[in-house]
């Protein structure tokens, strides 16, 4: 198993972001194939592919698609989660930038399968250029009859696609918060089962709503073109297909790498040119929310949902960050904690208060004023957030810190004992609380 480009195969073909070149490389064949089938047959094809959501949770895609009402009024909404905010992840941005038609096509297929007449791509506010590319692709697709009324002459299929840009909030990537934000609200999560309905039953504006990640949609045209079985033949049995990993950090060639699921973790590091600036110290394989893996635990880990879990971490969104031995883990954890404190929406107590507390304790430790009991205090705060917050952001804030301490406790202890970094010469930034407020956000 190694690099295997399905989605990214043509990413460097000049003009692939335009509809002509995209079509000449097999574009929109998937949509045509889908429209030649019954709606259920399209869902079955996705089922056969074994595709799992690429947004982070790895939930089987077909089950969501199958959950939308198949009769009755079809006021369904189809949402694409392009809010990509997970630190270390940049695959959706590149997909939209270079292969916007693949996403549009995937959404059109999903719209057909789920009888959705309206779609929104929720693009992260900072991604102006990706959004611009997407705008162009949507307009082109409209003109070619891939979007709009009676798509490709199909009498019973109309689908309009709009772009909704976010405005700076990581939490809006969480699917129910995304729905709030799309409806013009503060980006805060909504009740989910068992407290409220599933989005596929009642989502935005009270209508059945399907939400998938950019990469998830981008897989769909290929599955429809070549068949679910073809897709399922790649990867491992429980994690079929390919996955894009965004490799960054201390590697020679950072960038997006599409590999077969099940590829050994170390192979991906090699693909990216290997570790630079020192020896490998740790890897965060799936975005900042997943537990950090120390170098000694990396060997033998395979990059698939089960393999990562077995290693005590998660595949997550594929934000693969590599750190060499000049990295101060405590400072890294401090910055992680700052991120979650800054991005907590503030709705629920554990996340609002707990993330800020962790961030402050880590500030103090890296300012040289840590106490030995602070280490267990941090673990205790993690326990008090994990599983008790309104949405998984709280969990995601506690996992990395907990793993950081479990795997690198000695570095925390060094900081406490000596008031300085275990990394010779490393001086943490003095900045106190993470991202300083934008001037307009000060009291």
């Amino acid at each position: 198993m190694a690099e295997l480009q399905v989605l990214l195969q043509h990413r460097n073909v000049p003009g692939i972001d335009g509809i002509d070149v995209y079509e000449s490389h097999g574009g929109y064949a998937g949509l045509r194939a889908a429209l030649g089938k019954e709606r259920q047959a399209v869902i079955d094809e996705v089922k056969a592919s074994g595709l799992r959501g690429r947004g982070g949770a790895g939930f089987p895609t077909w089950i969501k698609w199958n959950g939308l009402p198949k009769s009755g009024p079809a006021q369904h909404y189809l949402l694409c989660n392009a809010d990509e905010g997970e630190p270390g992840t940049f695959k959706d941005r590149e997909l939209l930038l270079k292969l916007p038609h693949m996403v549009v096509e995937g959404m059109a297929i999903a719209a057909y399968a789920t009888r959705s007449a309206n779609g929104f791509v929720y693009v992260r506010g900072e991604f102006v250029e990706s959004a611009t590319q997407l705008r162009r692709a949507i307009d082109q697709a409209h003109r070619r009859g891939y979007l709009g009324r009676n798509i490709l002459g199909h009498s019973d299929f109309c689908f309009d696609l709009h772009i909704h840009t976010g405005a700076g909030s990581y939490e809006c990537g969480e699917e129910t918060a995304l729905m709030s934000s799309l409806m013009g609200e503060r980006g805060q999560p909504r009740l989910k089962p068992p407290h409220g309905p599933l989005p596929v039953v009642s989502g935005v504006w009270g209508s059945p709503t399907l939400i998938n990640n950019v990469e998830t949609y981008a897989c769909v045209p290929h599955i429809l073109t070549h068949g679910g079985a073809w897709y399922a033949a790649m990867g491992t049995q429980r994690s079929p297909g390919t996955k894009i990993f965004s490799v960054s950090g201390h590697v020679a060639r950072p960038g997006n790498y599409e590999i077969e699921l099940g590829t050994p973790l170390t192979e991906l590091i090699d693909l990216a040119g290997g570790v630079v600036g020192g020896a490998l110290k740790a890897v965060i394989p799936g975005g900042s929310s997943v537990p950090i893996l120390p170098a000694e635990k990396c060997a033998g880990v395979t990059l698939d949902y089960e393999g990562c879990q077995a290693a005590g971490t998660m595949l997550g969104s594929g934000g693969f960050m590599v750190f060499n031995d000049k990295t101060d883990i405590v400072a890294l954890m401090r910055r992680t904690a700052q991120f979650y404190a800054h991005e907590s929406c503030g709705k629920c107590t554990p996340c609002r208060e707990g993330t800020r507390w962790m961030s402050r304790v880590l500030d103090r430790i890296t300012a040289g004023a840590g106490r030995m009991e602070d280490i267990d205090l941090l673990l205790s705060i993690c326990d008090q957030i994990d599983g008790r917050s309104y949405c998984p952001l709280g969990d995601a804030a506690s996992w990395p810190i907990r793993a950081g301490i479990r795997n690198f406790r000695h570095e925390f202890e060094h900081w406490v004992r000596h008031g300085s970094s275990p990394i010779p010469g490393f001086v943490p930034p003095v900045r106190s609380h993470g991202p300083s407020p934008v001037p307009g956000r000060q009291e």
Partner: protein
Amino acid sequence: MVASSAGRFSEAGLAQLTEIVSHYPDAGGAILPALWLAQREYGGWLPAEAVAEVAARLGRPASEVQGVASFYTMYNMQQRGRHHIEVCTCLTCGCLGAYEVIDRLEQLLGIHLGQTTPDGEFSLTEAECLNYCEAATVVQVGERYFGGVNAGNVADLIDRLRGSDDCTPVSLSNAIVEAIVPGRAGATHG
């Protein structure tokens, strides 16, 4: 839907707002894009009147619109410099020199994080992950991203920005262009 109360929206802005509102089943859904428009129409930030105008045009309570606007970091609730320089200091950038870039910027501009230069040209803030980690350190200025920024080349960036008469500089020094994420240079907006 787009109520015609007095306000500062231009004709073009209003037309755009009407178009945007038509994408949503109710006008309230358009609060985010309407605030984006307002931020443009009001010169890069959202004074209380801008929030009130959006609220009135969309028929939503002003308190709600203000609550929404203040939730998101990209809406500026106060005026800031013409060029808003945001340096990503998140995990990857933070490990690859972002803090040195900030130190240098503070020196060059004579301001600290969270401040604006007295001439109103530059504001400097830290950013959460800008999700361009392959090009660390990444700096965002307005709508543009700059990759591969380091303490050595950031002065060039400032020079180019200082000279440019709008917030979206059209060309950059070679040093910066070469450092920019491949495929990023020269892309047009709009």
